C-alpha cells in the first residue's frame, strides 16, 4: 500500500511540474480561455486511478486543443469492471467530455488503447483489451465523433499503469486510454 501512496505522490508532483512548465511556456501568450469549461470538470472521484485533481491554485494553462489540454482538462482514461468491456456509467461524463473536445478540435485523430489487468492470460487479454478499446470508440462515435478519426489497439496486459498487485492496481490497469495521434495544437 505504501507503494501506492508514493506513486500517487509522484504522480501529483509530475502534474505540478507539467502545469508549471506550461505556465512558463505560455506566459507571454494571451491567457488561454477555457471555453470547453463544462466538460473540463475532473471525472468523479469514484473513478479509481483517475488523475488526482489539479493541486495548483490557479487555472491550468494548457493550450486549448493541445494534447496536454486533453489529458489534464478532459481526461484520457476510463476504467472497466473485471472481465467486462461495458462502458461504466461513471465513465460516461468523461467520454462525453472527450467527444465534445474531439468535436471541437476536428483535426485531431486519436487511438484508443485497450488494457487489461494481469489476472488473465496473454492472448485472451489482448482480445479483451480490443473489446474495451472498441467500446470506447463506439461510444465516441455515438457522440458524434467521426469513426475515421479513431483507431484502436489492444495492449492486453502488456502495459500496466500500476505495477502493484492489489485489487486497486488491477482495477487501474483495466482501462482504455484515448491517445492523441495527430492534429493537436
Amino acid at each position, binding site marked *: 500500500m505504501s507503494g501506492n501512496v508514493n506513486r500517487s505522490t509522484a504522480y501529483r508532483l509530475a502534474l505540478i511540474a507539467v502545469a508549471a512548465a506550461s505556465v512558463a511556456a505560455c506566459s507571454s501568450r494571451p491567457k488561454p480561455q477555457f471555453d470547453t469549461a463544462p466538460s473540463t470538470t475532473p471525472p468523479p472521484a469514484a473513478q479509481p486511478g483517475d488523475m488526482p485533481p489539479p493541486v495548483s491554485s490557479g487555472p491550468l494553462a494548457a493550450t486549448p486543443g493541445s494534447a496536454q489540454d486533453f489529458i489534464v482538462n478532459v481526461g484520457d482514461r476510463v476504467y472497466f469492471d473485471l*472481465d467486462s*468491456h461495458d462502458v461504466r456509467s461513471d465513465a460516461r461524463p468523461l467520454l462525453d467530455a472527450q467527444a465534445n473536445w474531439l468535436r471541437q478540435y476536428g483535426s485531431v485523430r486519436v*487511438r484508443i*488503447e485497450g488494457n487489461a489487468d*494481469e*489476472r*488473465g*492470460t*496473454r*492472448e*485472451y487479454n*489482448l*482480445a*479483451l483489451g*480490443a*473489446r474495451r*478499446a*472498441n*467500446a470506447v470508440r*463506439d461510444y465516441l462515435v455515438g457522440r458524434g465523433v467521426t469513426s475515421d478519426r479513431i483507431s*484502436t*489497439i*489492444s*495492449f*492486453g496486459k*502488456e*502495459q*500496466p*499503469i*500500476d*505495477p*502493484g*498487485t492489489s485489487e486497486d492496481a488491477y482495477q487501474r490497469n483495466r482501462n482504455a486510454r484515448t*491517445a492523441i495521434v495527430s492534429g493537436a495544437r
Partner: protein
Amino acid sequence: MTRTLRNLTMRPLILALACVFAFCLAAPAARAEIEVNVNRGDLQPLPIAVPAFGGQQGADIAQVISANLQRSGLFRPLDPAGYLERDINIAVQPRFNDWKQISAQALVNGQVTVEGGRLRVDFRLWDVYAEQQLLGLQFTSSPENWRRVAHKISDAVYERLTGEKGYFDTRVVFVAESGPRAKRIKRLAIMDQDGANPSYLTDGSYIVMTPRFSSNTQEITYMSLRPEGSAIYLFNLETGRRESLGSFQGMVFAPRFSPDGGRVAFSVERGGNSDIFVMSLASRASTRLTSDPSIDTSPSFSPDGARIAFNSDRSGSPQIYVMGADGSNPRRISFGQGRYTTPVWSPTGEFIAFTKQTGGQFHIGVMRPDGSDERLLTSSYLDEGPTWAPNGRVLMFSRETPGGAPRLWSVDVTGRVLQPMPYPGSGSDPAWSPLLN
C-alpha cells in the same frame, strides 16, 4: 537482428549410428532388466552413474548428460565422489561389482576423440545388475557442438531405459523480459532446453509475444505489438529471413503452426470481436473458421491436423472448445469451476494442456481431448502458457510471483517433477521445439 544468427545456425550433426562395438562383447543384446516407467507418479528415480568421459571435454559432456537425466525426474545421478572404479575405460567391461556397491543400476561411460577437426564420442550404457551392455553408439560432430552430442546421448539413454523418445536435443524460443513492470522490454530469445546458449532474436524496441515453433524446427512464428498495430511474423532461424503474414484490418495475434508447418492459425480482431482464421503459407489464402461474436483465440492443432482446440468466452466465461480444422462442429470440452485459457494439444494427441484460473490462483493442467480426466499440475499466483516437450512428457510454462518478473518453469505430466528451468533470466511465453535433426 542478423548479428545473433551466426550463433543459431544449426550445423548438421553427423550421426554414425553403427554398432561400433562389435569387437567387444560378443554376447547378444538381451532384454534389459532395468526399465523406467514414465507413467508412475510415485516413481523412485533410477540410480545412474555417469562418470566423466575420457578425452577432451569428457567431463563436461558427462555433466550435461547427468543434468539432463536428473531434470527429467526419472533418474538419480549418483555423486561422482563415491565412484569406486576410477580408471573406467570404454574399451573394457566395467567392474560391475564396484558399481553395484554404490547402488548404481545403470552406468553410462564414454570416450571423446578429436580427429581431423571432428569430435567423436563413443559411449556405452550398461545394466549394472544384469552385467550387460544396453547401448553402444558413436556420435561425430564439429567440436563446438559438443553440447548437442551430450543431448543426443541423453536422448539415447532416456529412450533405451524408458521406451519413449527423449527431448533433450531441443531448443526453446521464449520472450526474455527486462526492465520495470510498466515499461518491460521484451525480446524474442532462443536457448537450448537446458538453458545453455541463450541468444536474442529481436532488439527489444517493440513488444513481442507468443513465439511458436514449426515442425521443421527452423521456423518460428510470433506476434509483434506496436502502438500503430500488431503483426504476425514468420522467422527462419537458419537464414534470418523474416516476413509478415500480411496486413489485416484489425489486430492479429495468437499464431500457431499446423503440425505439417504448412498453415498458421491465428486470431483476427475486427471491431472488438476476435475470430480464428487459418492461412495456407503456400497460397497465402486465409479462411475464417469462427464467426461468433465472442472472443475466439489461442488456436492449437491436434497432431494429426484434423482438429483445432481454442479458447472462447461464448458461454459467458473463457472455456476450451474443440472444432474441426475447417471450423466445423465447435464443442465445449471444459466444464470445471473456473476460467480456462491457452489450450495446447500434446504432440502425442493424448492431452490438451491449459491454463486455469480458479480460487484466485493460476494452474497449468491437462485434460483428455474430450474434456475428461482433468488434472491440475501446478498452482501459483500466476502460471500460464504451457508448451509441450516433443515426447509429451514435460510441460514448460511461465510463472510470476506477485510484483515479480516471470520465470520459466517445467512440470512433468504426472505433476511430480516441478522445477524452475536452468535459465537465470526472466522469461515468458516459452515454446519447445521438436527434436532437432
